[in-house]
């Protein structure tokens, strides 16, 4: 897989941006790259990159996260260190952008620097099982709104179509028509499919590339839904 110096993940809220950004950071770190990930989500204070702080630290990934992430301070402010991603060209930078156009406004201040360097990939994360991006047309509308909000154009798509714990290989295969249509409508190539790590091996080999995702186990599973190997409390 070829990597750009900067990789930006944006999309509809709840499309899976944070999980993919974290897993991609770990993937790059595993290849021996010097990686820095910035949480630029100023919209949703609930689910964030900082939830994976321990995993990232163990892998040697630098995390830049709003000072008040995971606290009661609902303050839409970015830390000054965020500039490191665009200024320090010795690192591979990953930006986890907030959901929808509202979340993408924060990216706008970095857009001129990102464009000037010109070594970036901006991925639109799509899940066809999310109700507001159920059709390629709906997804395209949100894609365009994000581009307008942040002043950057997407360069590719990530197919993160999934139904959470109910995801099977068929769930992902059923999304292929959707993502192809979105690719056609947007003129953007598909970069990646994603699949939860236990589902990924069951996908056909023709489907590639696939980024296997390790997910946080902070899931309020009921006893009947719980896989045997999962601890009582994530």
């Amino acid at each position: 897989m070829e990597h750009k110096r900067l990789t930006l993940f944006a999309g509809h809220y709840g499309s899976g941006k944070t999980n993919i950004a974290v897993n991609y950071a770990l993937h790059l770190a595993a290849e021996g790259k010097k990686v820095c990930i910035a949480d630029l989500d100023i919209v949703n204070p609930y689910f964030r990159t900082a939830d994976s702080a321990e995993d990232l630290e163990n892998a040697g990934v630098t995390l830049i996260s709003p000072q008040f992430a995971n606290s009661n301070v609902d303050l839409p402010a970015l830390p000054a260190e965020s500039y490191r991603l665009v200024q320090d060209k010795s690192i591979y930078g990953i930006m986890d952008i907030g959901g929808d156009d509202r979340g993408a406004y924060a990216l706008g201040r970095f857009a001129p620097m990102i464009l000037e360097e010109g070594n970036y990939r901006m991925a639109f994360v799509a899940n066809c099982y999310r109700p507001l991006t159920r059709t390629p047309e709906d997804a395209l509308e949100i894609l365009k709104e994000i581009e307008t909000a942040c002043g950057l154009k997407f360069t590719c798509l990530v197919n993160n179509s999934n139904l959470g714990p109910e995801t099977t290989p068929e769930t992902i295969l059923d999304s292929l028509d959707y993502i192809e249509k979105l690719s056609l409508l947007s003129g953007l190539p598909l970069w990646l499919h994603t699949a939860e790590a236990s589902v990924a091996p069951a996908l056909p080999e023709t489907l590639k590339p696939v980024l296997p995702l390790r997910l946080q186990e902070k899931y309020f599973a009921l006893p009947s839904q719980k896989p045997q190997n999962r601890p009582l409390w994530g």
Partner: protein
Amino acid sequence: MAERVLMKGNEAIAEAAIRAGCRHYFGYPITPQTEIAAYMAKKMPKIGGVFLQAESEIASINMVYGAAAAGMRVMTSSSSPGISLKAEGLSYIAGSDIPAFVVNVQRGGPGLGGIQPSQSDYFQATKGGGHGDYKMIVLAPASVQEMASLTIKGFNLADKYRMTAMILADGTIGQMMEPISFEDAEIETYEKPWALTGTNCERKHNVVNSLYLQPDELEKKNFERYERYKVIEQTEPMWEEYQMEDAELCVVAFGIASRVAKNAVAAARAEGIKVGLIRPITLWPFPTKALNAAADKVKGFISVELSMGQMIEDVRLATQCKRPVALCNRCGGMIPSPDEVLESIRKAQKGEF
């Protein structure tokens, strides 16, 4: 199989409300329920509905009052501090006997508190919140699927009894994502001859009002309203029983606390402790009969709550204090772990309440 979609709890409420025929949403943003407003803002203009971000919570509840008086299916949503602001309007709506649908995705309190999940608005929802003698139907979902199904149920019940139905959820269920479907959506429709729809000069005009100039008239209204409440207490309680058949101990928990408690019950069963769980789905009307029947079988109860202990009072009342009731709780945005609940079950097993 019905189509599956992956939704946040908050989105499930918004989509279910639209499917229930709600075309009027008035709100004011507050974490952790803002996705409801965001979803409505996106969807309502596309289906000929109204999304309006009011200038305040007080304005939005009064817009609900107005649209409900005109016979519309209408809703507002907020989180704890915002619901306090809406309390006056809730009382006026109750006093006017009109149906409304309100969502509280609770966060830690009191005061501005925090933004993390909580269940500490139980008293506010079930005992009043606003002034005067009134009740609201209070529904407590424990999954994203129930956020949807209880929303539809809430709209139906509100119209049926001409009163407010409230979803009392919490930040966790509002924010978490689960696959759901809308297959069993049964939309009931009710005639609204009282609604302010214009007379066309063909009938006497309707009045929607909570002001009574004569005290005896006001008293009569209150008596009538409470007769209606009695019917609801008899016919509408909903609850789930889990492993109660041979239970010697009973955990009582609603919403997100019930999911944690279920794991603890399963772990306790693995240790040989005969424990079950009753999960109230309606908090008002409270499943009094189910709890009272359980009190004749079990040796004690454990109320698991994300508050300093509010539902525990209703458990004691429902069981007529026949058995001891222990409290297992966290608050302020913290959630008890299954291990903490398990420890309370072990203690209760030893007779420590």
